[in-house]
């Protein structure tokens, strides 16, 4: 990141959500890298940018395709890389052709000249990094959004080289590790596909069980199955879906309808309050041993520094005891025992002994054996001639507007996000006294404030097609007219996710948290109104 020539942050406010990563971006900027920020809001990251592209929420594919189209029209694509390492370029070229700069300006709200500038700068840069976060993935077409960005990296060859790559910035300290360990519906540890008989056989043998040969459901699929009455019991570990899922009212109804809900967590979350059984757990990062895997695939040790409170137990102990009750006696396992089993079964983790993780301060997978140093970046194979393994495929993706359409009744686009000092639903961060914290308010552009005749601090009713909440407004000049912003940090006070839509991406299961159509209504004068949001009937 520090040695690159150009950085694009797309749908990412890393200055606030990944502050230490942003230190490295700024080192690069100070060494001369240009920074482009693509975000509907002029965020604190965008304020550091050479150019801010303030696109309309959900028009990312139109913008990406237009950038691709312009690169091809200008003849700036990396022909040698495309020929050697990619496939389906012809179909891509044809598909993006209609996304001219002029059309894209209409679809995205970004001036054609600015799109052209980014296209040319990205294509001409010797090294370029393309980074994204939830602004890309919390949409009904999340996977298509990501594919649209990957197309750009393939088009320019900005992948698999030092200083050039695509970087999804992970939002939790071990969300990468969770996926790596097979906490995905279709993968076993080490990304080994569960529907591949040869790989599955290896696990059958090691575990002396028959691993189910079909992939399971992701979270949104589970909620759909609950709706159909095909899903009756849920075991939630370290998650607060009642407040983190979109369309909270539906989520609550479905969770309450379960025959059996178990919640294992370090604190009694609102989801835990609905549970039949709550299993108090030790905090993984400071009360137990183990590893976590960061956004850059670096496996690092977490260590026990304090004892868990009385009654709270290590996740490994809880799961081992549960297995015992179900007739599988695993014995007393340490975190290192389990890690060594991972190393036996997952080739990309094989070389990461605890001793090496300690000595090297973490290792980036893949690490195939104990002499392997780990890999600084992925996809170097694409630069081998001939390419090693399958070619990287261009994907044809088309622009689709957000599901929750704007109309005369719901004319304002609400998008959601995070602030520097808070984290997700606030289970952890609401417990420390941050001087930066302000009461949650609906951020509106000053122009919209004037249009609706609002004064700053006034309470308004915010309604989506699903619910209403009451909240004070704040004017934020970083928002363009027609755009509003709420965080998800203080759902006990402002239940943002009552408003959001549960339209999910069929491929990843992610809900469209970033695009809700809302209306703002002035409240009748009501002295003594309290600061809590009330659940009100959907209009």
């Amino acid at each position, binding site marked *: 990141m520090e040695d690159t020539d150009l950085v694009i942050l797309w749908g990412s406010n890393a200055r606030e959500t990944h502050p230490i990563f942003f*230190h490295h971006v700024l080192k690069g900027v100070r060494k001369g890298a240009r920074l482009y920020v693509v975000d509907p809001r002029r965020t604190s990251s965008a304020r550091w940018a050479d150019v801010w592209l303030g696109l309309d929420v959900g028009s990312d594919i139109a913008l990406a395709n237009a950038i691709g189209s312009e690169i091809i029209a200008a003849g700036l694509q990396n022909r040698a890389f495309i020929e050697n390492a990619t496939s389906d370029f012809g179909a891509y070229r044809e598909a993006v052709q209609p996304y001219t700069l002029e059309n894209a300006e209409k679809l995205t709200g970004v001036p054609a000249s600015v799109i052209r500038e980014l296209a040319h700068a990205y294509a001409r840069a010797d090294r370029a990094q393309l980074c994204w976060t939830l602004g890309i993935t919390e949409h009904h077409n999340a996977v298509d959004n990501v594919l649209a960005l990957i197309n750009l990296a393939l088009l320019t060859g900005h992948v698999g080289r030092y200083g050039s790559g695509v970087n999804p910035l992970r939002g939790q300290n071990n969300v990468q590790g969770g996926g790596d360990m097979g906490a995905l519906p279709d993968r076993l540890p080490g990304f080994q596909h569960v529907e591949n008989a040869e790989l599955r056989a290896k696990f059958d043998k090691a575990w002396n069980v028959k691993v189910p040969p079909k992939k399971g459901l992701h979270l949104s699929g589970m909620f759909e199955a609950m709706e159909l009455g095909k899903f009756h019991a849920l075991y939630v570990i370290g998650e607060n879906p009642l407040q983190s899922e979109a369309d909270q009212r539906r989520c609550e109804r479905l969770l309450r309808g379960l025959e059996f809900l178990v919640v294992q967590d370090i604190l009694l979350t609102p989801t835990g309050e609905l549970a039949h059984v709550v299993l108090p757990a030790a905090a993984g990062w400071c009360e137990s041993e183990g590893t976590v895997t960061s956004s850059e695939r670096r496996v690092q040790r977490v260590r026990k520094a304090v004892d868990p409170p009385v009654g709270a137990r290590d996740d490994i102990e809880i799961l081992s005891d549960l297995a015992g009750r179900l007739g599988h006696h695993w014995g007393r396992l340490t975190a290192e025992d389990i890690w060594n089993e991972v190393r036996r079964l997952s080739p990309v983790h094989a070389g990461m002994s605890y001793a090496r993780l300690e000595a090297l301060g973490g290792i980036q997978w893949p690490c195939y054996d104990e002499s392997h140093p780990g890999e600084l970046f992925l996809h170097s194979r694409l630069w081998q001639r001939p390419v090693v393994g399958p070619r990287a495929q261009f994907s044809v993706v088309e622009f689709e507007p957000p599901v929750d359409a704007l109309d005369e009744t719901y004319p304002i686009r609400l998008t959601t996000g995070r602030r520097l000092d808070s984290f997700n639903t606030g289970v952890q961060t609401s417990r420390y006294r941050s001087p930066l914290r302000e009461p949650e308010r609906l951020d509106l552009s000053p122009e919209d404030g004037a249009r609706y005749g609002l004064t700053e601090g006034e309470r308004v009713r915010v309604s989506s097609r699903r619910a209403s909440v009451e909240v004070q407004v704040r004017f934020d000049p970083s928002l363009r007219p027609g755009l509003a912003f709420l965080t998800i940090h203080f759902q006990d006070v402002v239940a943002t996710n009552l408003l959001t839509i549960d339209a999910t991406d069929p491929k990843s299961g992610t809900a469209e948290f970033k695009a809700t159509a809302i209306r703002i209504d002035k409240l009748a004068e009501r002295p003594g109104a309290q600061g809590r949001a009330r659940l009100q009937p959907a209009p």
Partner: protein
Amino acid sequence: MDQRDQKDPWLSHQPRPPVIPTPRGPVPVPPTFPPRRQLSLTVNGRKVSVAEGTTLLEALRGIGIDTPTLCYLETLTPVNVCRICVVEVEGSRTLVPACSRKVEEGMVVKTDTERVRLSRRLVVEFLASSVDVSTSPQIQAYMNRYGARPQRFGPASPPAGHRDAARAGYHEATDGSRAATVGQPVKKDNELYYRDYGKCILCYKCVEACGTDAQNTFAIAVAGHGFEARISTEHAIPLPESACVYCGNCIGVCPTGALMFASEYEMRQSGTWDESRQTQTDTICPYCGVGCTTTLHVQDGKIVKVTSPLDKDVTRGHLCVKGRFGWQFVQIRDPGSERR
């Protein structure tokens, strides 16, 4: 119910073809630079060879010569203000700061001459006579090493009140019977930090960490000049009104305890801070996916402060407000602990 709900979710999407991990490519390595020229120098009569670009400090530490530093930190740009790392270089009229001076071919360096020792002793004597160094074990060690006697400047003058109000360039000369000090009331204007500038030696580290060397927030700078110079927010406004984002990276680099986490300051005040009963454990921050190493300082089963090691490429000792302060949630679960 919309149409999606009618479908069986187990069958609702096309299965993707099973993908096994992609094949191995060559192990990526960062680009290498051509080997740098080796330079030779003489240190205290001993011949030494180092790579071009090495500073004198690195060269001295490389051969085991313990050179004192106060304003220098590996992760920050040298600012040459404390002058305690000075050494004698043949042909140079003045002593040179080892922390920033690059080695040149044929340099002849002396590190333990009377002139060097005198200069270092004066630096710590001036500092210790005008600043409260009681929470800086480093300065106290240097005082012992160089035989400093700050008391020879006389007893400390009483604190002059808020130095923030000092007029630029104005300095009241004393009659010489008492040592002028930077003593002033402790600043507490937020829940997370104490700022006790009576302990500040103006090493600039906090300004650098807040600025281009790490955080790029620029909430603080050096204001005033001469003896009235001090660290200040713009117009000396309280931190909550400033650009401060409470990353605590200024505290992380402060060598004297002038900047202190509220948890540590309050425990010191109540006499319960006891480093001999503390353990330090490295783990990974529980928040975003960057993977910052945090060092948990634990006393009597409680986290009492969080720092970050300098030698990790991800953090270089720096954290954000969540990693630095957002740990209280693990402790409010203890039965009997006060819920704040």
